């Protein structure tokens, strides 16, 4: 099981305002450290038109990392593919794949914030279908000398991509949040599935659903890969761990989880500013796993047993994680 991670710095956060260029520098510095600590991948997320100047082009963020690292995979977590022209995205990925010697892993999501779609002049309604089509376009573009594609949203005739990516095709993951529907779609298309933070039981359900859909579509088990974001908060005691989680929630997650329609109810409706008692919000905060070193290892062993190919760990406590947890999985 691989461990990927990220770091802060690609935005100016309210509780800890910083100079953006310093943050970018720290992001790169932390990547070098993460590589040295034995992490297997390092990534950047994506948002647009943000007051806090959040990173809008994650492949550029990891391009900077590529220049000063040699082994760590360079990932997007997630890149919002419906906000790109698929060839534009493939060109970015291939450019970085050449520069990095084949280290690109695209974590691709469909996005959720309404004004992002409005800013890119593209419909939020069709984002799921466009994500799947665009992933197929990228697969073709980075594995064939030339290709044609006739989708509902994208069509190409004898298209070739330059430069030729090193990976054939470039590694792609479908970031489908925590929805069963997403898992079924990814399985049916044979795409690697990367879950958002969720409690273990829900994770187990999703992975089952994904594998079943994949098997039904005729994909071999080896083609069906799963990964998960997994924030962990480690303390000497449970109280310490929970205090750390609360800090993460207060300082970062509340704004992003409550404010922008990230949570989606059973009817597919985005929730804006729901109460902190809302079950979906509670499920999210519970998914930020609290424990001691021992229990965190135990929890991650469950993920390993589930056949998880990769777990994406949080930006904090990396030295502790590298020293105490990663060795248990080598």
């Amino acid at each position, binding site marked *: 099981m691989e461990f990927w991670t990220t770091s802060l710095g690609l935005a100016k956060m309210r509780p800890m305002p910083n100079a*953006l*260029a310093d943050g*970018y520098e720290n992001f*790169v510095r932390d990547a070098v450290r993460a590589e040295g600590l034995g992490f297997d991948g390092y990534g950047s997320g994506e948002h*647009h*038109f*943000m*007051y*806090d*100047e*959040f*990173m*809008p*082009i994650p*492949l*550029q*963020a990891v*391009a*900077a990392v*590529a*220049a*000063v690292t040699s082994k760590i995979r360079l990932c997007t977590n997630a890149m919002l593919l419906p*906000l*790109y*022209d698929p*060839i*534009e995205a493939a*060109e*970015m990925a*291939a*450019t*970085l794949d*050449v*520069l990095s*010697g084949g280290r690109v892993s695209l974590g691709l999501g469909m996005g959720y914030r*309404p*004004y992002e*779609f*409005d*800013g*890119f*002049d*593209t419909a939020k309604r069709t984002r799921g279908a466009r994500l799947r089509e665009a992933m197929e376009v990228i697969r073709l573009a980075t594995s064939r000398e030339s290709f044609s594609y006739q989708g509902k949203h994208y069509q190409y005739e004898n298209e070739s*991509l*330059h*430069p*030729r990516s*090193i990976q054939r095709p470039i590694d792609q993951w479908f970031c489908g949040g925590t929805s069963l529907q997403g898992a079924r779609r990814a399985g049916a298309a044979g795409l690697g599935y990367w879950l958002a933070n969720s409690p273990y039981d829900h994770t187990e359900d999703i992975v089952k659903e994904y594998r079943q859909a994949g098997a039904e579509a005729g994909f071999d088990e080896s083609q069906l890969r799963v990964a998960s974001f997994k924030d962990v908060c480690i303390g000497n005691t449970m109280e310490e761990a929970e205090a750390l989680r609360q800090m993460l929630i207060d300082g970062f997650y509340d*704004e*992003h989880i*409550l*404010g*922008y*329609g990230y949570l989606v109810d059973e009817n597919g409706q*985005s929730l*804006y*500013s729901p109460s902190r008692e809302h079950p979906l919000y509670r499920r999210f905060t519970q998914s930020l796993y609290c424990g001691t070193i021992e229990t965190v290892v135990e929890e991650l062993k469950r993920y390993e047993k589930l056949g998880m190919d990769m777990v994406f760990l949080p930006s904090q406590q990396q030295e502790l994680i590298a020293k105490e947890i990663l060795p248990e999985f080598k």
Partner: protein
Amino acid sequence: MRVGLSWDLDRFEDASAGWQEVISEVVEADRMGFHSFWIHEGRERPADCPMPSVFLTYLSRKTQSGQLRIAGRRVTHALAPHIVEEVSVLDNFSRGRAGLAFAPASRQGVVPGHVHEMIDFVTSSWATDEMRFRGEHIRFPAHTPDEAPAGASVPDVEGDYVPQWEWGPEMPDFLSITPKPYVPHTPVHVEIDDDETLEWAAQQGISPMVGADMPTEQAARRLARYREIADEAGRSRREIEAVLERRVVLDGETDECTLGGSPRDVLNAIRDLRGKTGISHFVWRRGGATPMDLYRFASEVQVLLQA
């Protein structure tokens, strides 16, 4: 006078090997004080780079001082906000060394107005916070009505601040494209191959660039014409960074597009072109020269061009 380098990427058969050669040269040249490195957008040949912003962000960590310029950017191969964003991100990673030069409309199969509108959109986005833009080719955000003023506009009245995390499903009429560049004035250039663009750029104070493939005499005429129009429009030299890109072959032959001869000959030729055209930035388009040439040019041409 600034002196930079660009590359004929299309001469390499393989992107990996070719780009590594370029990266090594950039690292050397950055140490030697070359002022700028230009990666041209291309997508026809195996080692072309379709996304210079990614290449240059990579280079931002391999270099300390040189300006990192996206060259030959086309307006139809990336969504408009991405072009705004990519330069800002590069500018922050490089702490103010980013620049952006657009390809001429003729090379892109678009009308010149499309390029002009993109330049207006990009530069306005950098200079403002919440903004909307109504153009013939670009509308930002998408729901901007036909009644909005042409080009960029900002809200007239600002009421009580509503933070983004309280917007809910609303799509506001104005958005701020972020991050902003590290420095307040990011260099923007356009290749002045068509007359409409030459005149527009001279009037607007957008800096001109002439690429390596235009014959030197024609390049000089066009840059001189740009200067004339800019003078008439009250755009002084201090606003403009006129860029001329040429091939150079030390100890070789001068031809239509190439400066040849001894370092002193090349020096004189560049000074002569400066006198005729008002250029303040010379870019050597590298097409197979050697590292030794780079050093000779640095110490016998580049340093002396400074005064």
